[in-house]
């Protein structure tokens, strides 16, 4: 094969993969999806007995999915530059949840890369395709395909398309607040900004917006935790038949969301620049000492020239990842389900002398009952520690004044009725742990909070 033929073949492959990847944004579909869509979907997924009840519940959809945090600053950044939204990733419901959260926050829609397996459902595929999603085939590992993806993402950012990356990569199997980020296409942020600086447009800023998506119950919890514990997850294969592929489970999930106020909280953090620096309210980068710093200087050489250095840029992206990992716990919203799971797990660990899940899975059912009064007292203590340490996250904003007894009742409803097998059930004055794996999954959301003295084995 001649050099020309090789070049032609290469161009053909790039074109093929480019067309496979490329997405579209149709404003008409966006208008439909953000206007009529939620109402229609809500009616379809309504748990109520009558259409009238369903419509009434939908009027309160805003109360079901809450968007809060540093929204005003993010809005200002969207006017000044391009947003790169970087949420935690627990569920396939994250895409609609963050989409709705962005809309509720008055933030612009974003492009995003979605696993090709998600396009198998024609209904969902239509919306994803026309709402800016581009396809990512995670089975393809070769460099050419990765380069096509990176280039596509870089060009989108250079042209000012707001983007969304899940920096953790795939859904977090264990439900811990993500602390090991794969970063992936997040690295294109530095490349895109460097190109803008080189083209004389350093004022076209890129802003990384950390976001946590916090569910009271997670649609795929059972599959995810099974996968995590079997150690077959961790991206070694792609789950194709989890709860997300079962329409009945999705309907059930929406029913639970609509039946409970604030089931999902989408919390926005203060944006960062591509080098992990925080910013002022006006979008200027601040160094670690709080001084204004020119972000363009990070890609310049000794004489102000823009320099190319892939290793440097990868290190910058790792620094950005470390900042996201620092920020995520503070942005975490803990629902009643997390709090109860944590105190029950602590009690289980205290009785058995270990927090090791594999050991705890062998614990006999007889040792798995905890007095309601003890659980309430432990939740009281946990809430007090949370209030004292904002870096660990916070309680659900709508329920900070709720009594711990009410939290227990609410958590038992969430943990006991949604999943195919209950995690916790109440029997008179005792809480029975029915599924240690699910309990572990929900308590993992608090795993960054150290065990307090007397609250369980370390």
């Amino acid at each position, binding site marked *: 094969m001649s050099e020309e033929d090789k070049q032609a073949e290469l161009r053909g492959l790039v074109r093929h993969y480019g067309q496979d990847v490329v997405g579209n944004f149709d404003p008409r579909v966006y208008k439909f999806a953000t206007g009529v869509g939620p109402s229609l979907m809500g009616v379809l997924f309504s748990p109520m007995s009558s259409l009238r009840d369903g419509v009434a519940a939908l009027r309160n959809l805003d109360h079901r999915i809450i968007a809060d945090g540093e929204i005003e600053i993010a809005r200002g950044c969207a006017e000044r530059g391009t947003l790169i939204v970087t949420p935690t990733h627990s569920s396939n419901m994250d895409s609609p949840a963050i989409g709705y959260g962005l809309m509720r926050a008055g933030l612009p829609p974003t492009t995003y890369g979605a696993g090709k397996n998600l396009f198998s459902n024609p209904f969902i595929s239509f919306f994803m395709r026309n709402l800016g999603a581009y396809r990512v085939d995670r089975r393809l590992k070769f460099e050419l395909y990765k380069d096509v993806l990176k280039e596509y993402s870089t060009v989108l950012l250079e042209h000012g398309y707001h983007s969304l990356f899940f920096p953790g990569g795939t859904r977090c199997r264990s439900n811990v607040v993500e602390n090991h980020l794969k970063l992936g296409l997040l690295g294109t942020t530095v490349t895109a900004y460097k190109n803008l600086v080189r083209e004389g447009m350093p004022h076209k800023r890129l802003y990384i917006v950390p976001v946590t998506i916090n569910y009271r119950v997670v649609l795929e919890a059972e599959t995810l935790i099974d996968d995590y514990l079997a150690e077959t997850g961790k991206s070694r294969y792609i789950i194709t038949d989890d709860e997300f592929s079962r329409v009945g489970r999705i309907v059930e999930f929406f029913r639970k969301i609509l039946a409970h106020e604030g089931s999902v909280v989408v919390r926005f953090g203060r944006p960062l620049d591509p*080098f992990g620096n925080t910013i002022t309210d006006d979008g200027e980068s601040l*160094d*670690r*000492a709080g001084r204004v710093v020119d*972000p363009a200087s990070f890609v*310049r050489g000794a*004489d102000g020239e823009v320099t190319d250095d892939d290793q*440097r840029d990868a*290190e*910058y992206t790792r620094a950005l990842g470390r900042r996201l990992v620092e920020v995520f716990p503070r942005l975490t919203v803990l629902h009643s389900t997390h709090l109860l799971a944590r105190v029950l797990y602590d009690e289980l660990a205290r009785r058995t002398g270990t927090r090791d899940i594999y050991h705890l899975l062998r614990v006999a059912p007889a040792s798995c009952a905890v007095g309601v009064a003890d659980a309430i007292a432990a939740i009281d203590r946990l809430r007090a520690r949370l209030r004292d340490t904002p870096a660990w996250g916070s309680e659900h904003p709508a329920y900070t004044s709720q009594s711990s007894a009410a939290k227990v009742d609410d958590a038992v409803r969430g943990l006991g009725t949604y999943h195919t097998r209950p995690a916790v059930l109440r029997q008179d004055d005792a809480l029975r742990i029915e599924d240690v794996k699910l309990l572990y999954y929900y308590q993992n959301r608090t795993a960054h909070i150290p065990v307090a003295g007397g609250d369980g084995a370390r």
Partner: protein
Amino acid sequence: MSRADTIGIAGAGRFGTALGSVLARAGRRVVVWSRDTAVVDAIQTQRTCPRLPIATLPPPLEATADPRRLAGEARLVVLAVTSADVRDRAHEIGQFLDGSHIVVHAVGALAAPSNERVSEVIEQGLPTLKLGVIAGPALPGDLAAGQFSSMVVASAFDEVVAETRRLINAPPALRVYGSKDLAGVELASALSGAYTVALGLCDGLGMGPGPRAVLITRAIAEASRLGIASGAESRTFAGLAGLGNLLVRASERSADYVLGRRLSEGVVTADTGRTEGARAALAGVELANKLRVRVPVLAGLAAVLAGRAEPRDAAQLIGDSVADVE
């Protein structure tokens, strides 16, 4: 010479002055920043520094009391100050640096008073992320006298290593090697101070070359274990920053070594005589406990420093404990 080819040195102490001397003698342009205007005047007018009078400072080297000039004229800045000052000096020059600068520190200890690695401390005061460390058995007197010296520069950024080597490598007086193991070089350099105290103690007790060799060997082995548990590379501890530093510091010129000798005589109590090496020993034990690594040498030294053990008993305990685990 351009900004890219100029070396900035923050601090006109013994090491900073000696490094500047080597580089200026090799024809490199050097800007030394000192807060002490008397030192700046002495360098500019008499071509000598009162803190290291034996060093000759030829004209390619200039001194300034203005940190803005340091930042403006050099992209690479070597932070050559004490562990007690490093936080404040980084913050001070950080006002005038930006993201394009490269900062390499030459502090062979943990930062006081928090006992963090120095790079972790200075990154809070500097705008640039391109940080590194330079360490190794290069004594100021040897550098000033043009003796053969070697150091290692380490950074997560290849550019930091490459640029530091390009600008500071000045054979035969100073050879600079490269590493990616920033944490390892910092830890090895700091712990070698602790083991220098132990060597002083060993020598003060009159132990012979056999026990002395065992102590050095065991010290490097346990530092490696601690390093691996901290995410560093084992081989770093047997290199210039670890073994090299330990061997060069074991003399009466080192405050850590002198402290060890005084401990052997029972002169120092728990409340006095804290050196950088002594602090590193206590911090090392704390880190080892956290990471569940056994460090008999550091633990024995810490016991003596805290007044919980007599020097000779500690030496016996260290020997027994090492024999148990290795």
